[in-house]
């Protein structure tokens, strides 16, 4: 037994590679912890000392997309089920908050758990039948559910206001919760983004995370290893649904008036998929990197090329997908391992 342990340790030392440069591994953890703490302090103080209102608004949308990309990452990245309908949770979360605030006079904070429950329930309900489908079939089914749900929301106009939208009472006498302004939403979305990252990080290190990664590769083999694949997939989808619905809830309050076409827009799904995939699906930091770079890029292009920013944005995404299809995180990891930047590897490999 002791020889096994000894050998294990020496193998681990070899495998550690670059990190072995630090003689004491705990030092790396301290550095990482210090870096994270510093980052949090900067993010907390930035609205007061660094950022204009408009910049806070931009960052709030960046944080929101971190949540959406992380939510997609769980089902699309870790479990390998490419959902093209995750916006349905966003829309349902938003409408839950808007309806409860506008029709029931509920305060904003009470609507958050309600939105979470709706996201969870809907994910479980739609997951049970459609998580039996795989690959393209699953993608198309989720897309269909999201499109269909939007039509339903439009058609129950009595409750949702239909195409004319619904307005939450945000100012004046009727306001149930006072409108927090740009700085407020900066913090709401920041906190939710941090929660999303921590949740995904915790899952990635847990038994559940391993189960999802196994499922993404081979469900039969995962089941043979004792993994209840049905339960794991539905749980991943449900957590994804909760995070996404909460983002939708905050978004609805921020927008004050929301419309079905806006809250159930396919564009939002497409963006979260691209952010997660380009950053690195199935990793913890990948979707964060993807969301931050793409959302910033998008905003910057909008400011500097107002006439054709979507065209340029699309072109950049096409280029990025061609050059780093495995995502920025995996690309960097590979480059570090092989000491080589292989930008045209994918182009060569897949004859693009």
């Amino acid at each position, binding site marked *: 037994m002791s020889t096994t342990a000894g050998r294990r340790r020496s193998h681990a030392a070899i495998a550690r590679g670059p990190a072995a440069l630090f003689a004491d591994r705990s030092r790396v953890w301290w550095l990482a912890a210090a870096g994270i703490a510093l980052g949090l302090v900067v993010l907390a103080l930035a609205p007061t000392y660094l950022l204009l209102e408009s910049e806070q608004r931009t960052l709030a949308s960046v944080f929101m997309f971190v949540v959406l990309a992380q939510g997609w990452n769980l089902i699309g990245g870790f479990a390998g089920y490419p959902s093209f309908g995750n916006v349905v949770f966003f829309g349902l979360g938003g409408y839950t908050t808007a309806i409860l605030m506008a029709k029931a006079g509920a305060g904003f904070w009470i609507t958050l758990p309600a939105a979470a429950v709706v996201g969870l329930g809907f994910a479980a309900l739609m997951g049970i039948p459609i998580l039996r489908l795989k690959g393209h079939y699953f993608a198309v089914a989720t897309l269909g559910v999201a499109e269909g749900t939007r039509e339903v929301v439009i058609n129950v106009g009595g409750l949702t206001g239909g195409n004319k939208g619904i307005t939450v009472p945000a100012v004046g006498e009727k306001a149930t919760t006072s409108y927090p302004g740009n700085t407020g939403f900066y913090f709401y979305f920041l906190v939710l983004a941090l929660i999303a990252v921590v949740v995904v990080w915790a899952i990635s290190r847990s*038994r559940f995370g*391993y189960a999802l990664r196994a499922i993404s590769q081979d469900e039969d083999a995962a089941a*043979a290893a*004792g993994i209840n694949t049905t339960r794991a997939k539905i749980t991943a989808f449900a957590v994804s649904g909760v995070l996404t619905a909460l983002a939708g809830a905050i978004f609805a309050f921020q927008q004050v008036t929301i419309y079905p076409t806006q809250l159930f827009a396919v564009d939002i799904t497409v963006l979260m998929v691209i952010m997660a995939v380009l950053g690195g699906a199935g990793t913890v930091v990948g979707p964060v990197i993807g969301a931050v770079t793409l959302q910033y890029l998008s905003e910057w292009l909008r400011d500097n090329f107002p006439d054709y920013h979507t065209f340029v944005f699309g072109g950049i995404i096409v280029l990025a997908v061609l050059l780093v299809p495995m995502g920025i995180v995996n690309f960097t990891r590979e480059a570090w391992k092989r000491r080589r930047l292989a930008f045209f590897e994918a182009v060569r490999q897949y004859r693009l």
Partner: protein
Amino acid sequence: MSALLETRDLSRRFGGVDAVAGVSISVDEGTVLGIIGPNGAGKSTLINLITGHLKPSAGRVIIQGRDVTGRKPWAIAKEHVARTFQIVRPFRNLTVRENVAIGAMYGPEHARSARAAVDQADEALERVGLLDRAELTPGDLSVADARRLELAKALAMQPRLLLLDEVMAGLRPGEIQPALDLIGSLRDAGVAILVIEHVMKAIMAISDQILVMHEGQELTRGKPDDVVKDERVIEAYLGERYAKRARADVRQGDARG
């Protein structure tokens, strides 16, 4: 000795074809049942029926006296049943060690945490001789090592019933003996083992009993020595030339033993 695995008239139809038709077997603790037969005889389907990857059209599967017919694969895995797949199916996004750790995490002997399972995995890796390749990804393994990984994944589940679907295919002659030794040591530890194998010398050497399948049905069964002499087996599967060689091997073995 008690039967760890029993099947009663197990059957499975695919469309109009009887892939497995009324197969009844029984495997005791500490014994090895070998299954041979031509391609398409229903050997792998039989394993899939036992592990719940396929639902039987008729018949029962009984494990440790409990009827588990129709249960899901993960529920059957919890009954201390582990298997390998004919075509190796590693989790390519995980390291070799993590692949094996999955079995320790979700198998019947739950590891407390992901990390504890990773430690447990090393024991299984050591047994199959893969410990020095634990940090590689499955894509970097040779064919033989990929087979070893498949076996290590099953071992990490600490099975009482082990179903091996051609774990020796693609191994070089020199690599077969260690694999046989490993199966032998598992058998001696009380594991009930079902082996499908095309490497005749190997399966003859390790099996206590051989079941010959043909077109989904049992053709015959018996001790390895008797089975290779059976005319029907020779006709259906082995071919006359092989049979001669096998008989010669058996005689040699007798002379040596």
